[in-house]
């Protein structure tokens, strides 16, 4: 029971409590660069999940064989190998996705999250745990950049487009703030599509998370104070 609980934690923690982007603020380069459209953000998330899953798997399987001194070089080689695999696979099967992500597929090699998970988690834990951690981090990062991309695409383009990057699904354009049939009306703000919009959206998202955390902390403090006061009152009552 306890074992199962901890396995579940390993998987669930990176989704929310230790989210690699929103809480740890790692991997910000691709989070800003590929989030102009929801689809390419999801594609980036999938490639990232693939890389972090397999690098965690291999590194935790080899953790007892790799000598201590040369750990970091080994991690780099393993990660670079899987990034090369991802590059070849995506350029063959999803060329539109590969072209829209551009150089950021290669930059997965120097992604802080991949190297960080290898060093902090996979090098000290069992294969199954590391795989769960990899998938959890992948999904956590994917939903985080997908959320940013959703805001940026809706505000920046006024529409949501599907089928442009994943060509195997039919092409659909959903009008939200603009792009309606037979109408020029649009409330889209192109600044959110530009580079400045990425910084602003991520900054505001982090601020909202900080505000929620501050609120929670304050509530916990107040609850503790109330409990203390109640205990003191009870003690007084007991004395009387």
């Amino acid at each position, binding site marked *: 029971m306890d074992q199962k609980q901890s396995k579940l934690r390993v998987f669930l923690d990176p989704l929310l409590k230790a989210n690699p982007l929103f809480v*740890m*603020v*790692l991997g910000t380069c691709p989070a800003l660069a590929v989030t102009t459209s929801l689809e390419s953000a999801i594609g980036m998330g999938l490639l990232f999940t693939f890389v972090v899953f397999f690098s965690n798997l291999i590194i935790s399987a080899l953790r007892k064989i790799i000598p*201590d*001194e*040369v*750990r*970091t*070089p080994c991690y*780099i*080689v393993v990660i670079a190998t899987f990034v090369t695999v991802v590059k070849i696979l995506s350029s063959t099967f999803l060329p539109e996705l590969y072209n829209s992500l551009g150089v950021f597929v290669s930059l997965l090699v*120097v992604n*802080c999250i991949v*190297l*960080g998970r290898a*060093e902090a988690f996979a*090098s000290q834990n069992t294969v199954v745990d590391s795989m769960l951690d990899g998938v959890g981090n992948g999904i956590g990062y994917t939903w985080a950049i997908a959320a940013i991309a959703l805001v940026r695409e809706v505000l920046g383009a006024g529409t949501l487009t599907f089928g442009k990057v994943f060509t195997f699904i039919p092409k659909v354009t959903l009008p939200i703030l603009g792009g309606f049939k037979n109408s020029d009306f649009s409330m889209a703000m192109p600044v959110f599509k530009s580079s400045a919009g990425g910084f602003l959206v991520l900054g505001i998202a982090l601020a909202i998370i900080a505000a929620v955390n501050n609120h929670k902390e304050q509530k916990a403090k107040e609850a503790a104070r109330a409990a203390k006061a109640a205990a003191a009152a009870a003690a007084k009552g007991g004395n009387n």
Partner: protein
Amino acid sequence: MSQTGYIIIAIAIVVALVAIFTISFVAYIKTPPPAGCERGKGPNCENCEQSSCRFYAYAEERAAKKLKEEKPSTKKGNE
């Protein structure tokens, strides 16, 4: 050249680069920083503690541990 020839060249290049990388990595880690510039002690070292993108994290933690283990023994030797 045949397909296998290209594959052998590719493997040779990667192996050579990994060897160079590993040797230079070990050499870098094994060299102690100059006096007064140890990790966390330097004059403008707030960047050393930057938590993201720590490339040498593992090796440096090990080195710090070793230093801690060595210090008591050297003190004893002095006495």
